[in-house]
């Protein structure tokens, strides 16, 4: 046992782990220290007990001694340090600014602290490809500053953005006030370079829509340093909006304010910020910063909208009306950047002001479906009163993300105990409301035991097994995120084969069918109507179909979510949503035999929302049946959720290898009343490609962009726009066309259907009689790809993501075509190997499908 005395206020975390974990022994630590000293510079290693104290904590406040600290200056050094520590079985914890609020970087069992603060270089900003490549130690705000001169920004801006590192943001999947419109960190991470627990350094498969293999980037984002250590981040960046309007609406009560939030959403406005402060918060903030907030108000909303100036003006006027109808007795619109800053000042000061009224404060982080936010806030007040606290809240109201604050004195043991009980009760109440116990702060050590409130033993065991798949010896950041249940859950109860069917009507029937197949040693192919099965490259075995699972399970219009069974026709769902004035970005308008589950499993491309990364940005949760017949449920109908691993990401693009997706929760968007669809054409593709790339770098860009050559010699650039602002977008696009000498043809929306049908026809024809090939490159490299494609080949290129699809004659596409990911030619299937990830992908498959009933366990080549 490495002897390190206990620190004041230290909780005994060892009992949580039972006999499964202990600190590394001192000989092992000594070995690591010697090896590190032999390799690195003296100022890069700290190993004396006293200096180590400064690395015993993070912003959560608990303290535990680490064994050694290393300041890595390069990815190679991270590799070296991980190899040295892992060889001795010494735990490894990556650390940035340690501003996290869940204990993610607290060395509960000691170990090696791998400080990445010196890896703080912005390597590359590429506005045409809309990405920035950075080291993990770069501070979020520093990236924002660097992007400003390009008129670009990186949307996720957690409250800690001035201190937190991007590596930390990735580890925690950070949110922030702007994610109501732009999404959280995971929606902007394209690729990671990581060092695995075995010391290997690898690039993750891209998160873009031409990925083959599993969404490891998505799974690792938010994994809190327990699965891999990030050494480089490729982040998606966006052009700064043309205009931003900042508003403050003042209400007599929280209820009025939250009704107004619902009304804004119901009016199909998606603000870029929708923040709430309650009465006590206002009093505290105002006494501290004098931001000009009314202290006699019950609540205020800080609202921002951004976009083309015409849209911003219309939305600002609409919000002013909505707020007035909602009972706002005061409504201010900032007339200048300075005034906007003043309105923000109060919101930003919330934490600090709270910190000044008591020796210590605890900030909680729960998320509920947005329409339940008022109820959740009432729960919090009642719980506070019960435990003797006057709890006050700020909320990212647009996301249903609530931050109750409890102030207390750490020296008062009774108060600390009551605080912990109140904390637990708040989490339980949030789960009762269908929420997630953490929206953006993470599980860490803080909520480790409370994860069971949200996830049953089977889900927790699955998460724990996934951790094991990445880190079999358990050296990375131990006792964080998830603990397996005390006893591994047994397989679901199986009886003699019932008169089961391969087209189950319920998840239970599907589970029964999977168990029957497992018992009988039957190989299953899971799908809807199997229209795209050729794309899997696997023979069709016994088909287990979702085609009878086609109910809408839950439609929450105010929350902008829908939960559907996986066999539901995607185009029928799209039609149905259109009648409600809503849309889900990737649903097609035609092909009734394409199911929602199938599209998710295939991560199907759709160019109308070209600047999203794909289905991963839309699917909030899934229910799926794994190879044991277990019915697992991951995710919630909340906009933010970082409770446990984001297992849902694995379903997207899983191609039926991990089980049968039985239900999915989708995020919806309002469908603007005026929409845009049109094209322009040219005899040279490069000209269109250039224009599309310029579009991408502009704030005025349309939502969707694609280039087609569906007939030889006829290249077309298509654009679509379904967000507000069809008219200004159209004018802008036409202006760009005039400059380039191109004219636009505008079509009725019905043209969608024929567009999609044509693509489907070409695709089926290529699969049956020729070659279908697809892949992806950096958008600026698409030109090289196109120039290698024969003149008579037809193709579709996606200039926003860099994806391409080629429809050609037999054996006409060379395997060395840049970025080629999949080629199907005359029954021959080829797929790009997932370099270095095969073993981990196999282990992940084994977690869900131990007997390989959804396909052989060796990856295809």
């Amino acid at each position, binding site marked *: 046992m490495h002897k390190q005395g206990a620190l*004041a206020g230290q909780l005994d975390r060892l009992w949580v782990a039972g006999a499964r974990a202990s600190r590394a022994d001192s000989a092992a630590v000594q070995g690591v220290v010697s090896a590190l000293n032999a390799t690195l510079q003296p100022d890069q290693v700290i190993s*004396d007990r006293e200096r180590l*104290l*400064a*690395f015993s*904590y993070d912003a959560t406040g608990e303290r535990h001694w680490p064994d050694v600290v290393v300041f890595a200056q390069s990815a190679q050094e991270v590799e070296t340090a991980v190899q040295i520590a892992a060889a001795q079985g010494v735990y490894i914890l990556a650390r940035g600014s340690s501003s996290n609020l869940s204990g993610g970087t607290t060395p509960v069992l000691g170990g090696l602290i791998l400080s990445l603060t010196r890896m703080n270089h912005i390597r590359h900003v590429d506005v045409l490809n809309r990405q920035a490549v950075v080291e993990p130690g770069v501070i979020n705000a520093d990236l924002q500053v660097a992007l400003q001169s390009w008129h670009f920004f990186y949307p996720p801006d957690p409250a800690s953005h001035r*201190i937190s590192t991007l590596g930390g943001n990735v580890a925690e999947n950070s949110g922030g006030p702007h994610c109501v419109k732009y999404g959280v960190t995971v929606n902007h991470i394209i690729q990671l370079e990581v060092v695995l627990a075995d010391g290997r350094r690898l690039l993750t498969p891209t998160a873009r829509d031409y990925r083959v293999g599993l969404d490891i980037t998505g799974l690792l984002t938010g994994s809190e340093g327990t699965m891999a250590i990030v050494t480089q981040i490729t982040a998606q960046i966006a052009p700064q909006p043309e205009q931003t309007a900042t508003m403050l609406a003042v209400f007599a009560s929280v209820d009025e304010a939250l009704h107004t939030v619902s009304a804004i959403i119901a009016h199909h406005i998606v603000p870029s910020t929708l923040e709430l402060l309650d009465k006590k918060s206002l009093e505290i903030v105002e006494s501290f910063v004098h931001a000009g907030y009314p202290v006699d108000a019950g609540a205020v909303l800080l609202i921002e909208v951004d976009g083309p100036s015409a849209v911003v003006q219309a939305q600002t006027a609409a919000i002013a009306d909505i707020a007035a109808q909602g009972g706002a007795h005061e409504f201010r619109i900032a007339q200048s950047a300075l005034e906007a800053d003043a309105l923000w000042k109060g919101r930003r000061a919330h934490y600090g002001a709270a910190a000044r009224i008591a*020796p210590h404060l605890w900030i909680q982080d729960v998320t509920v479906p947005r329409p339940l936010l008022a109820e959740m806030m009432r729960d919090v007040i009642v719980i506070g009163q019960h435990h003797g606290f006057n709890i006050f809240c700020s909320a990212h109201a647009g996301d249903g993300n609530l931050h109750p604050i409890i102030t207390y004195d750490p020296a008062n043991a009774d108060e600390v105990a009551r605080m912990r009980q109140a904390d637990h009760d708040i989490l339980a109440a949030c789960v009762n409301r269908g929420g997630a116990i953490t929206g953006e702060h993470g599980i860490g050590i803080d909520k480790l035991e409370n994860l069971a409130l949200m996830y049953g033993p089977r889900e927790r065991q699955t998460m724990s097994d996934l951790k094991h798949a990445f880190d079999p010896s358990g050296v990375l950041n131990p006792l964080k995120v998830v603990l397996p249940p005390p006893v591994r859950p047994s397989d679901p109860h199986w009886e003699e084969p019932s008169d089961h069917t391969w087209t189950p009507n319920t998840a239970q029937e599907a589970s029964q069918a999977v168990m029957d197949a497992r018992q009988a040693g039957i190989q299953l192919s899971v799908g809807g109507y199997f229209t795209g099965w050729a794309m899997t490259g696997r023979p069709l075995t016994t088909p287990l179909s979702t085609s009878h699972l086609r109910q809408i399970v839950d439609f929450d219009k105010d929350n902008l979510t829908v939960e559907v069974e996986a066999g539901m026709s995607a185009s029928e769902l799209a039609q149905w949503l259109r009648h409600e004035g809503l849309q889900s970005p990737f649903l097609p308008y035609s092909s009734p035999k394409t199911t929602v589950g199938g599209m998710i499993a295939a991560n199907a491309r759709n160019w109308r929302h070209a600047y999203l990364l794909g289905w991963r940005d839309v699917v909030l949760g899934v229910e799926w049946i794994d190879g044991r017949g277990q019915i697992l449920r991951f995710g919630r109908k909340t906009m933010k959720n970082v409770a446990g691993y984001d297992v849902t990401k694995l379903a997207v693009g899983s191609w039926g290898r991990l089980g049968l997706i039985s239900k999915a929760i989708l995020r919806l968007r309002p469908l603007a009343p005026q929409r845009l669809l049109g094209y322009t054409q040219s005899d040279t593709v490069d000209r269109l490609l250039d224009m599309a790339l310029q579009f991408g770098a502009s704030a005025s860009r349309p939502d969707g962009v694609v280039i087609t050559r569906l007939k030889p010699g006829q290249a077309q650039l298509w654009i679509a726009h379904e967000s507000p602002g069809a008219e200004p977008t159209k004018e802008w696009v036409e202006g760009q066309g005039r400059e380039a000498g191109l004219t636009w043809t505008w079509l009725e929306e019905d043209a969608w259907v024929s567009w999609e049908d044509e693509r489907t026809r070409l695709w089926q024809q290529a699969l049956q009689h020729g070659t279908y090939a697809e892949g992806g490159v950096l958008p600026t490299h698409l030109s090289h790809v196109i120039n290698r494609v024969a003149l008579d080949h037809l193709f579709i290129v996606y200039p926003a993501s860099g994806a391409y699809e080629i429809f050609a004659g037999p054996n006409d596409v060379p395997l060395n075509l840049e970025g080629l990911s999949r080629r199907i030619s005359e029954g021959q299937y080829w797929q790009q190997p997932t370099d270095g990830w095969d073993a981990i992908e196999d282990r992940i498959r084994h977690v869900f499908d131990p007997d390989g009933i959804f396909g052989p366990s060796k990856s295809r080549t």
Partner: protein
Amino acid sequence: MQSVARNSILSEIDHCNKCGFCLPACPTYQLTGSELHSPRGRIAMVEAATRQEIEWGQGIEESLSYCLSCRACETACPSGVRYHRILEAGRTALAQHRPRRLSWATRQILGTVKHPRRLRRLAGIGHTFRKWPMPRALLPLLPLTGYQAAVAEPVSPISSKKPDVAFFEGCVMSAIFPDANRAAQNLLQRAGLAVVTPQGQGCCGALHLHAGQREEAVAMAKANILAFEATGDVLVVNTAGGCGAMLSEYGELFEHDEQWATRAQRFSQRVRDWSTVLRQQPQEIPLAGSGERVVLQNSCHLVNVEHAGDDAAALASSVPGDQFVGYPGQDRCCGSAGTYNIEHQEWALAIVTAKMADITALRPNRILVNNPGCHLQMRWGAEQAGDDSVQVEHLATYLERAAARAAASSQPTQGGSPDGAP
């Protein structure tokens, strides 16, 4: 540590939520990326040593001694933690547990500042022998030397019944930078204020306090309080951000001294930077520039303790005909920090080098300063950067020249008083 002091410091430490908002504000954290050299880390070290979880040993000594005491963390702290109290308590306890002999050079400085004449002589000798090889022990003193002050003619004083402000000269300012003091006095008088310089004042004691010589500092503070009580309750103005900060915290220095607490408090409430007083004066002084680009290296104590950094920036950008260029590091410590650039020369150089890289990119003709330590440090930085085109100058001297230029051009034929005073 005494149990009263122990409890008082632990309760101050309790206010630290370890949120980390201080990290980007801290120059040594920026330099090292190490928690040990961050405000949050230093607080944690003092806490642990106070709780006897670690020794008052080498680890905490390293952590605390490399702190610049620039106080930028206090401005960044959302919880209002009074970091300097924790630091000082830590340093005091450390001095008891682990007495440390200051370097010869620092001891010379701490001794000399009490004797302005000796200090002036040292600066003068330094100028003469600058180009000659120096004994190793003297090398750290090099940055102190070689400044040639060109003191402006005094403008005709305001003849008023009683003074409007009492001028605090400061030891280094009066010995090495008398030009800046004179310039500030001239400007105040141009703005219509009667300035008096009380007898019996001396060094503010900041260097001693920060070097752990509290008793020396207390004695100096008493002398100053006495000297300025003689002038009545007028504002006490000075030209050095570091001294201003110390003077404005005499109240805190004596808070447990029944006899002096009120007097010290009263004195501290009177303290202002000259730039604050000048900026608030309704009478505007005509200024004229000469087409220069200027940047400001603000005194961190002026910014973070007196909270008057904006006044300096406002004045620096007020000269028509010159171009003031702001930059993000304008308020960030230059690495001078009292005797820091002598005790920790390597780090001080690294900090000023990084700063010079930012500044050089802006291609200024002039770097304006408002503290003697910063003045010497920035000259050293410019020299190290091999940039001899840029001048380092006190803000007051710069403004006084602009005022004289404006006065001269408005009255080209008259040789009389250029101040325009009534």
